[in-house]
């Protein structure tokens, strides 16, 4: 009710203010008319000047008067839309023909909807940041030109830092030996030897793991020219399967803000393969299924399962 009342008062002030503006405009145009007409219709030059100045002064006075009146009225009008959440668009509610143009209610709907959307998008973005599948920030939605700028800081870590992280992990697991080399510039390649069970070639980009290949302990991991062979797969089905699972693990262990934790988690998981041939499946209790030992290791419990026995 109070709103309606105040709107009423304001409307009256509006009407007065509008007529004040009209008065101001006509007085201003009289000033310019007077200037345009100049000094004429008088016999003597002196008379002409006097009459012109008097006339001009009168006109300026009336402009001044009308301006003062408008200022006074504008204070009365105030700022009607100031505390309306939709600001000036709130004035649409004043439209008397609601039925024909339901703009205001539609606007409110849209406003509520966009508010909710923003809220949910915020929640989703928070969750997605914790569980990011995006392995580096520059792969989506950024134009090619801007890419270098968008590179996350984790991609430009100094090699010394990567060396430190790797050597710390190497010391953590006595049955695992990690040999780091940089045959192609700054990107590191690891040759991980796990007991006398398997060897893993790990291709890094800074502290991100790009690719892993698992091979048997007695299989060749070098090409003819003595470089690590990062392309050919193991001759044994069991290690091809473990390679697949290791690739899955790379996607599982993701924490873009803490890449060193990711590498450590991955290596901890990898270490559970030390019992590849000795651990029976935790579900069916057997060693072999279709000629393969339990090749899957649970990401949290590290328990051994056959590929088809995991939940």
């Amino acid at each position: 009710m109070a709103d309606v009342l105040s709107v009423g008062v304001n409307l009256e002030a509006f009407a007065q203010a509008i007529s004040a503006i009209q008065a101001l405009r006509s007085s201003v145009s009289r000033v310019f008319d007077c200037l345009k007409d100049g000094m004429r219709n008088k016999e003597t030059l002196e008379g002409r000047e006097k009459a012109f100045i008097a006339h001009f002064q009168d006109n300026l006075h009336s402009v001044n008067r009308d301006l003062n009146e408008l200022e006074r009225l504008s204070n009365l009008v105030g700022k009607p839309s100031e505390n309306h959440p939709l600001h000036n668009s709130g004035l649409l509610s004043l439209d008397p023909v609601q039925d024909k143009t339901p703009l205001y209610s539609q606007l409110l709907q849209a406003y509520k909807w966009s508010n909710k959307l923003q809220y949910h998008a915020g929640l989703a973005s928070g969750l997605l940041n914790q569980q990011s599948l995006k392995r580096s920030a520059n792969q989506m939605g950024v134009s090619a030109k801007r890419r270098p700028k968008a590179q996350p800081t984790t991609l430009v870590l100094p090699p010394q830092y990567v060396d430190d992280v790797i050597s710390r992990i190497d010391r953590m697991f006595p049955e695992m030996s990690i040999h780091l080399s940089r045959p192609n510039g700054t990107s590191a390649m690891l040759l991980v030897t796990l007991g006398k069970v398997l060897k893993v070639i790990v291709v890094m980009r800074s502290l991100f793991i790009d690719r892993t290949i698992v091979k048997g302990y007695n299989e060749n991991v070098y090409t003819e020219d003595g470089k690590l062979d990062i392309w050919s797969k193991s001759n044994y089905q069991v290690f091809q399967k473990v390679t697949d699972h290791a690739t899955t693990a790379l996607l599982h262990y993701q924490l873009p803000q803490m890449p060193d934790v990711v590498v450590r988690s991955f290596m901890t998981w990898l270490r559970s393969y030390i019992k590849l041939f000795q651990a029976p499946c935790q579900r069916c209790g057997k060693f072999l299924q279709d000629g393969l030992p339990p090749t899957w290791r649970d990401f949290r419990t590290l328990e051994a399962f056959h590929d088809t026995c995991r939940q």
Partner: protein
Amino acid sequence: MEMFRSNTVWYIICQPPTACGYSTGQLRFRGVSQMPVAEGKSVQQTVELLTRKLEVLGAEKQGTFCVDCETYHTAASTLGSQGQAGKLMYVMHNSEYPLSCFALFENGPCLTADTNFDVLMVKLKGFFQSAKASKIETRGTRYQYCDFLVKVGTVTMGPSARGISVEVEYGPCVVASDCWSLLLEFLQSFLGSHTPGAPAVFGNRHDTVYGPADTMVQYMELFNKIRKQPQVPVAGIR
């Protein structure tokens, strides 16, 4: 008569070309009710039965194999001066390693040499003499099942079939003791429940990487057992 002997199946378990523990042992089908090998089946029939079981399991044929062994003893002329019994030396070949020749002593070292070694043995006639009719060999088919390689062979000495050898190789694992349970489960899948207990070697040689010589030692021991086996098995010899 011959047929009784054939009921004895010898097996050799080993891992990959460069790995495995070994076991030589003997598995008698005779009197084992689960095994549908009736007493008196021939070597040929038993081999066929085993290979059929492997094929049912899903194993695929992958060519043939052959392992042979010849016995040499120290020549009499050198014996006298030494004043001790001559040691036996076995010279063996394995089709898996076509460029190699193996020379072994019982409980002794195993020498892995080029195939030229055979020529050398001829030149050493004065020191080592080939025992008469000592050549023993096993021939058969290789089967591949997943990462397992199974070789079922017929052991022959001269003209007669003396037994069956079954060799199982699991390539991915290089330490014998690591995968005994796994191998046992695999053996049971085609030999039935009457598979052997863990051979001593699977426990003894802890953490040692298996090599081709280990396979040859097993074949040597297997051949020796078959040689010592009486031509006509006595009833109740199990």
